[in-house]
Structures are given as C-alpha cells and as structure tokens.
C-alpha cells in the first residue's frame, strides 16, 4: 500500500501539471474577486473565508478526472481490481485519494495564506481559514473519488464529475466557511462548526472509498 502511495506521488510530481494547474486556477479565481466586488476592504475581509473555500473547492475538482482514468487507460486498474483479496479495493482507493490530495490539493492549502492577503483578511482569519481548509479538503477528495469512479469509462468525464460532486460537497462548504468566519466576524463560534467539519471529513473518508470501489467494480460491465 505504501508502494502505491509512493508510486502515485512520484507520478503526480513527475508529470507535474496537476498541482500547478490547480494552484494557478485558484490564484485566478481569488485574484478576480476584488475586481468584481469592488474596493470595499471590510467587505472583502468578511467574505474572505467563503471566497477562499469556493476557490479551493473548484480548484480541487480540476484534477479528479485523472484519478482512476489514467490507471484504466494503461491497464493498471485491472490489476488493482483483481488484487482485491490481497488489498481491499476500498483501501486501495483510499490510498490513491491520499496521494491525490497530497499532490494536487495540499499545494492549494499551502498557497491559501498568500491568497488570503488578496482578500485583506486579518492574520488570524487567514490562519483559521487555512486550518479549516486543511481539515476539510480531504472530504472533497473522498467525495470526488466517487464521481471519478463513476465516470471512469467516459472519455470526457471532467465536467460531469463537477456536476455530480458539487451538490454533495455543500455540507463541507457550509461548515468550513462557518468555522473560518469565526475569525473575521465577532461572536461567531469556531469550535462547533470546525468539529462538524472534521467529522464530515472522517465520515467521507470511510464512505467515499467504499462507494468508489463499488462503482469501479461495475464500471467494466
């Protein structure tokens, strides 16, 4: 299993495009917001956590299409499927998700503080929002894996994944933004929404890979 994580990590870093595209898209989304909203610095600071979350959500959907498709195209997926008795397929999917998150989504979390400054967010707000992104984005990857598994056989499934996955990520978005807002708006609680966010991430870490494994197994019929 460690070997699979290591392989996917190496592949992600060597082909390299995934992480960069995501980060640049994230940058582009955040950079145009102030132009659209106008030069109201207080307003920007207040909507900062929400904008960062939306940007991260959309950017993290970008590379999902390739999660299983690359393995299907070169035949690796067949071997991962028949190794089911050795390595439970759901665990294999879980490991692939982790590798995908490390390569494609973690860079988004890392650049988030920089982009937070674009939104005139206070230092505390930036720190808190980054923390919520760190806790919440794995949930998006795990939900996204289900979408990626469902469209694995389709030639242009990228957009379909977004359509399938976005509605399911709404709870993650709500609690992620709610926890982030605690730092920029007074009297908003931080801990309850943050704990629910962490719970959602753990919940989808179990449900997502199991559902994706089921979808992958029936993809070939």
């Amino acid at each position, binding site marked *: 299993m460690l070997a699979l994580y290591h392989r996917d990590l190496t592949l992600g870093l*060597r082909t390299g495009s995934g992480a960069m595209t995501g980060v640049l898209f994230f940058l582009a989304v955040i950079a145009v917001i102030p132009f659209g909203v106008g030069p109201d610095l207080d307003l920007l600071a207040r909507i900062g956590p929400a904008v960062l979350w939306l940007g991260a959500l959309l950017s993290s959907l970008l590379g999902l299409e390739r999660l299983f498709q690359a393995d299907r195209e*070169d035949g690796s997926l067949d071997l991962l499927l*028949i190794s089911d008795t050795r*390595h439970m397929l759901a665990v294999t999917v879980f490991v692939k998700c982790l590798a995908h998150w490390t390569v494609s989504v973690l860079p988004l979390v890392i650049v988030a503080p920089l982009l937070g400054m674009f939104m005139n967010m206070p230092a505390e707000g930036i720190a808190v929002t980054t923390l919520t992104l760190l806790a919440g984005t794995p949930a998006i990857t795990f939900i996204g894996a289900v979408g990626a598994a469902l469209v694995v056989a389709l030639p242009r499934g990228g957009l379909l994944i977004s359509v399938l996955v976005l509605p399911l990520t709404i709870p993650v978005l709500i609690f992620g933004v709610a926890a982030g807002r605690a730092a920029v708006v007074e009297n908003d609680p931080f801990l309850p929404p943050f704990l629910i966010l962490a719970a959602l991430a753990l919940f989808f870490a179990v449900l997502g890979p199991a559902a994706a494994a089921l979808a992958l197994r029936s993809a070939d*019929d």
Partner: protein
Amino acid sequence: MPQVPEATELAVKGLAGERGGEVIFSEVSFSLAPGEALLVTGPNGSGKSTLLRILAGLLQPADGSVLFRNGGEAWPNLGAASHYLGHLNAMKPALSVEENLVFWQKFLGNALTSPLKALESVGLDGIGHIPFGYLSSGQKRRSAIARLLVSYRPVWLLDEPTAGLDRSSGMRLQELMRAHLGEGGFIVAATHLPLGLEGAREISMAASA
C-alpha cells in the same frame, strides 16, 4: 520455489459470457491440473478476451462457474491466484521500467525474482533505468512479461502474449511458460498464433453470429 498443492484444480463449468447485453459464448467447460496449459483460439470477436476477463474476475459470467479448488488460504479464488496480462501493459510511461516492476512486486507481494533478474530473462538487461514510455512496443510487451516473473502467481492468464514480439522474444516467452508449467503452474492463453507448448490443450471459440 513456491508451488501449489497437487490437488489444486482450475475448473470451469458451463461458462457463458456476454458483452453489451449480448451473449457471445456459452457452454465453455474445462478443467486444468497443475502443470497444464490451455490455449484459447478463435477469430476476432469470438470472446477470447472476455473469457479471460471473466476468469480473472473482472467481468461477471452470464452463466456457469469458475472455481479454483484446493488453492488453500493463499489462493482463495482464481483472481487472487492469477497474473493477468491483458492487451494493455499496466505500466506507467513516466516511471522507469525498473520502478514499474518494483512497484508491482511490492503491490502484488509473493516476491519471486528481482526486477533486474526478471528483465534479464526477457532479454531487456541494461534498460531498467529508461522511462517505460520511451520503449518500443515489443520492448513494452517484454517488460510487461517481466512482471509475471517478479511476483509468484500459480495461474497466468495471458491475452495475446506474443503481440508485438519478435521471433527470439517469442521463443524466450515459450521457455518462460514451459518453466512455469514445470513448476506446477497453470496457463490460460488467448492467442491466434501457435505458442509452441507441447501437450497444451486447446479450445476453439466459435465465431459469433
């Protein structure tokens, strides 16, 4: 050298396969004992690949059963006991040949020969460091065959194993297959070229109407 118990048997009864809702073959039955090989022949579209995918457990049979008897705890079903070499080579173009093989050895377990030795036995010594994507199609096929050697599986399911191989590589593959059978392995190969295995049984898939 790992071996399977002598009582092990690969038994297929009344198997039917379908593709896109249409039954393309039915009533396929055979059984193999350790050291036996089966060649699946037939024209394009007769269901050779589908048969192999069903054996590997990648597709559900429309009817009939596939059993791997007395495999013990190590090989509970045919999929777990099989190396599957399909049309695709299951190697990553961005990784070097050796990295690919090291990965599969770790992932599949039951390490048998080292990746370098395996490459040597398919005649690819000295190119382990080259990215897989740079190889010619025959070399790609040979490195995929090397994958069969890095981890032990009693059953080899081979789909057109000689595709893209030159004459001497074909001979080398024959030797590897003979050695595998000699150790009590099973081989089911779909092919329309003779593989030169003495005593191999053969079933012919009828062309679909």
